[in-house]
């Protein structure tokens, strides 16, 4: 780390110590923040996951009981896992497809394209916020726009949030609609594909779908991978829409009881802090595994120009 010079070593060391101290002083806000608000809470939550803790009494060590209970006795837990997986596996691909579709539309040369890009990105800026969820609730509620439209068309109205079969679908629709951020990343990726490729393909007589399959998709695949991973992780952690739309209860029939919502209920409604901490750790591991699987499969479908295709 340090170059020791004969003779002036002591002075130099002193000088570098001072320089280092200044450096540490400058990074200390981050280091302290990281320790106080990230690392220490993580360690404490790991400890709590092996305890029975209700916020009032001291945590009691109960070993792996929380995990056993979660996996073997708690039906609601498995229900929340099921709901979350449906939400992720239906919502994320749909959202990415939609984002790519819109990105390609916005990649055309048109006069108003700047305005369109802004407008399509808006839903994501107000993203997972409470306001959007409330608006969504109003659009789909009993006398909302959607039902009014259905009645106008002579179709009986649907209880979007009351029907156990429809509620999760409505939540997924909300998540698809918030496609802006992945759309923007796709758009940047599309801009990076050089037009010569398409021109060359056109000269060879390639059709539009063929150009899409053979040029756009392969060259975009690293970006697809990035979006896929980021969106999967955030989808696993979705909380606000389910909380707002089901009034914090995951109704109807636990159909919208996403993992994080059930975790919240255990922690803050039932004061089972230990159990909730255990759930959080299982979620972390689950997301880790999902991400690892996505990375593993990526070598079969992601194309990197710089590495000769891999």
């Amino acid at each position, binding site marked *: 780390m340090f170059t020791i010079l004969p003779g002036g070593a002591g002075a130099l060391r002193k000088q570098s110590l001072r320089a280092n101290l200044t450096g540490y002083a400058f990074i200390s806000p981050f280091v*302290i923040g990281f320790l*106080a608000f990230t690392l220490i809470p993580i360690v404490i939550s790991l400890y709590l996951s092996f305890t029975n803790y209700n916020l009032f009494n001291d945590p009691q060590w109960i070993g792996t009981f929380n995990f056993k209970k979660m996996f073997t006795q708690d039906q609601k837990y498995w229900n929340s896992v099921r709901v979350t997986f449906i939400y992720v596996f239906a919502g994320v691909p749909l959202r990415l497809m939609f984002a790519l579709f819109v990105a390609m539309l916005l990649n055309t040369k048109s006069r108003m394209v700047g305005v369109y890009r802004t407008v399509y990105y808006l839903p994501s800026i107000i993203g997972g916020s409470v306001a959007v969820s409330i608006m969504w609730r109003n659009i789909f509620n009993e006398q909302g726009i959607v039902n009014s439209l259905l009645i106008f068309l002579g179709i009986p109205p649907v209880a979007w949030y*009351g029907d156990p079969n429809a509620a999760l679908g409505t939540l997924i629709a909300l998540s698809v609609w918030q496609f802006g951020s992945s759309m923007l990343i796709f758009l940047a990726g599309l801009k990076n594909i050089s037009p010569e490729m398409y021109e060359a393909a056109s000269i060879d007589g390639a059709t539009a779908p063929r150009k899409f399959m053979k040029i756009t998709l392969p060259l975009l695949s690293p970006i697809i991978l990035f979006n896929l991973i980021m969106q999967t992780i955030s989808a696993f952690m979705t909380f606000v829409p389910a909380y707002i739309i089901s*009034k914090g209860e995951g109704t109807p029939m636990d159909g919208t009881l996403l993992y994080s919502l059930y975790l919240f209920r255990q922690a803050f409604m039932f004061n089972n802090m230990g159990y909730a901490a255990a759930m959080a750790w299982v979620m972390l591991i689950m997301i880790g595994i999902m991400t690892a699987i996505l990375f593993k499969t990526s070598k079969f479908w992601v194309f990197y120009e710089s590495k000769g295709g891999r």
Partner: protein
Amino acid sequence: MRKKTAVWLLVVLLFILPACSGGGSAGGASNGEGNGKSAQENTDKKDKTTLRIAWWGGDKRHEYTQQIVDKYQELNPHVKIDVEYAAFDDYWKKLAPQAAANQLPDIVQMDISYIVQYAKNGQLEDLTSYIGDQIKVDDVNENVISTGKINDVQYGVPTGVNVLGFQYDPELLKKSGVDSIPENWTWDQYEEIALKVRDAGYVMDGSMAPDIFFHYFLRTHGLSLYNQEGTALGYEDDALFAEFFGRLARLIKEGAVPSQEKLTQTKGILEESEIVKGSGVGVWQWSNQYVGLQAAVNRPMELAPMTGPNMEKGLYMQPSMFWSITSHSKNKEEAAKFIDFWINDVEANKWIKGERGVPISASIKEAIVSELSEPEKQVFDFVAAMEEKSSPMSPAPPVGSPQVIASLADLVEQINYGQVTPEKAAATFRQEANAVLANNK
């Protein structure tokens, strides 16, 4: 060198962390200006007592409570009151860490579903010695003041009382061919009327909160939802569960009550409830919700008593909330005096007007009648009439009750969706609830 840096880091950490936690605990919603003032005043007058008080509620409640606090400070210049308030959910999320750190305010507003937890964990003061001394309760019905007792220890003083009833639109009932709700009506009569209402093209009600009304139903049988110790359910016969929720599900099936789909969808949105839209006859709920409902419905409404048989056994005065003094408070006597002001001061109660339930003191009730609006008066009269017919309340819900209630609500939903029979749900509920309550043994 590394060691030195580590030491240095540690020093910084030690310096900053207490500062963080100190800042966090002081955070009340409204003491931005108050704190600065209090520092100054304290130097002026060293013997001034400072009380901290916390409550939950909406804007209207914050406004008049602050008004009362100001008035009290004016009358008692030696007392300075710092206020903290929040919405219901946030209130409990804030109170729990304060309790864990022994930093609760001197006076806290307590809810019936939390008071047992706080009392059992030693956070609340026994008020017995203050009652009759600092806190005068000569004009208060024994059934009412005893609602603040847990295992015969007075942990809270109710701010006011509510009572269950049927709040309805008499006009719609007449249109359905029912002139009035019969005196001492029974569940069977309720069902008959509901069917008549359905035949006229209306719906009877917007369903009942399962835990509250099932509890009432059990009380009419001399039972209770939880046993005395809070270690298990308070009834043995699952047929009662099946009878009660079976009837409610039947009413849904017959179309006398909106379907569960509709109920889930419109839950918590007053504007979309059937009675506000003009297609529903009434709502089963607490009397303090009547004034708000009446304003939304904007048609003449009335209150009817609960259904029987044995209404007198089932009916009880429910404290809307309590004032409690925390055990770590250093100014318990001053805190008790403020609670007394709350209960017995006419001026203060003219501002409160029953917003925290109908006042518990009989003389206060009389003194403020002239100040009430028509719906408020209806509520006061209704509660007064029901008070004579009520029995003592069952013990406050035990620790774990939120989980038990959530489990019950879930199962009732499943019954109403037709996914499970009432009999099967009764057994599942017993098993789930007892598993939670067994932790209290």
